[in-house]
């Protein structure tokens, strides 16, 4: 495995990624498996129906319909838990991609080898994309296993598309963390700022559904592109997906340019 920077990341991370994928699988499995046994689902639906529409909008982009497992999953899993499971990985590893080695002090040793700086950014990012996909597959397997175990009729194709949307959100904010890490050489600053942008984006999208004057600003939130189209009901929308990919690519390009130009810290 230790043939390239990409392989080195795989070598270092495969146990952690598989572990995280297994952990991430628990959540969809649990929600799907619990769905039929929530006897009070009708009561919950009535409670939700009585809520002001604004509050309901904040928690889920689609109309809350708990009578289907998809509606239940949308509220419980895809509003926050699924993106969080992906973002916890992408933001942390991307923030440390170059900055981690600079802070630990291995970057000088690595770059004494005849490889260009951009390759470190690109190869590590490629490995992180694979890691994210593995975590996404873990979540999908969890949902499928849960559905099979309790006999819930779930459209696994749409579940896959909703998880893919979570992964794209992870790439978008991972790109932010990558760029800030490459610019500053500080990994926790990078992860922290990306996390703040994540939280701000979450609330901007949620509040945009409630407040008229914020509404036009929703498209600057990556969460809007993640969930606005309700991928669990309607599938992945190409336009929204492309916006998230663009976030990731811009982050990657900024990271490469910044890292190529900067004095490396040690």
């Amino acid at each position: 495995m230790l043939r390239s920077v990409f392989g080195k990341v795989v070598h270092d991370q495969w146990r952690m990624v598989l572990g995280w994928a297994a952990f991430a699988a628990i959540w969809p499995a649990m929600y799907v498996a619990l769905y039929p046994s929530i006897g009070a689902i009708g009561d919950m639906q009535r409670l939700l129906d009585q809520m002001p529409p604004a509050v309901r909008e904040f928690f889920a982009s689609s109309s809350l319909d708990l009578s289907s497992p998809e509606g239940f999953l949308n509220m419980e899993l895809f509003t926050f838990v699924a993106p969080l499971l992906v973002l916890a990985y992408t933001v942390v590893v991307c923030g440390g991609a170059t900055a981690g080695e600079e802070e630990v002090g291995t970057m000088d040793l690595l770059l004494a080898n005849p490889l260009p700086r951009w390759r470190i950014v690109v190869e590590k990012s490629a490995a992180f994309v694979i890691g994210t996909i593995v975590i996404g597959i873990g979540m999908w397997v969890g949902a499928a296993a849960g559905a099979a175990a309790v006999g819930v009729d779930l459209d696994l194709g749409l579940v896959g598309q909703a998880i893919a949307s979570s992964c794209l959100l992870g790439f978008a904010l991972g790109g932010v963390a990558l760029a800030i890490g490459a610019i500053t050489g500080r990994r926790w600053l990078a992860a922290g700022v990306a996390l703040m942008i994540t939280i701000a984006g979450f609330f901007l999208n949620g509040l945009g559904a409630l407040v008229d004057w914020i509404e036009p600003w929703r498209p600057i939130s990556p969460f809007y592109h993640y969930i606005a189209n309700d991928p669990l009901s309607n599938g992945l929308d190409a336009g929204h997906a492309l916006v998230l990919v663009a976030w990731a690519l811009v982050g990657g390009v900024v990271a490469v340019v910044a890292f190529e130009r900067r004095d490396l810290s040690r």
Partner: protein
Amino acid sequence: MPDPIIHTERLTKRYGSARGIEELDLDVRAGEVFGFLGPNGAGKTTTIRLLLDFIRPTSGRALLFGLDSRRDSRAIRRRIGYLPGELRLYDSLSGVELLTFFAHLRGLPSIDGGRRVAERLDCDLTREIKALSHGNRQKLGLVQALMGDPELTIFDEPTLGLDPLVQAEFFKLVDELRAAGRTLFVSSHNLPEIQRICDRVGIIREGRLLAVESVSDLKRRALRRLELRFAEPVSPERFARVPGVRELVINGLHLSCVVTGSVDPVLRAALELRVEDVISHEPSLEEIFLAFYGDGVAGGPPSSATPTTGAPTEEVSDVA
């Protein structure tokens, strides 16, 4: 003369408040072992990191193998081995894994070259790096630097943490590399080490190159502090006129002085009396700088001291 392996022209790096290096003009010739001597914080590591393109010069430039350190960095790094100062390795790998990884990055067919050096230095390649002592990590750092038999190897404080036996083996290795025509650039704050392995020395302080001298010149002007204890009282007159003696202090049965060059005349003078004990101290770098180059170094003229062999003069040391 053939092109120098390392050539810098007014190479300058300024940081906001921290000290960098100022108008460094340096030439390292093919096949020599060049020492880069200076106290910690003098700018040695900054210079090396400029050569390797980890940081970029504020002004001036550096050429390695005649190639521009910035534009052709990758081609240069293909021909260089490097041991970083304050070495940090990948803790999660074993020695073999680290060498395998770097061999692939360098396009080497195998890690055999690394294994040979490891054997010489008695470096265990099978254990995880996080389980290694500081000295063993340093050995592994040397092994990876020398693995590809590079034309130029840059060592930043190579013997830090090595026990004396391994240090001696490393010195032998350096002698063999010199004999094989390799060029070595050795940064150190340890004068005896530099004197042992180098042909020429560049002396740097506070970001400026004070002088470049041959080690034989440096040895001729070697400086040491001597302490003698006698069995009978000593008179200052006996030693005041001995050549090379300065800072003479006599206190009852004790004598202390600083000797430049050979200690032979002092010892001859001493042996006319009954000597009980002799202690010789290596001087600190600061003492040497003070003796050789005076105290006005920090604010000294930057460009007048063209770094050529034997630039500093005797008057300076007399003043000191």
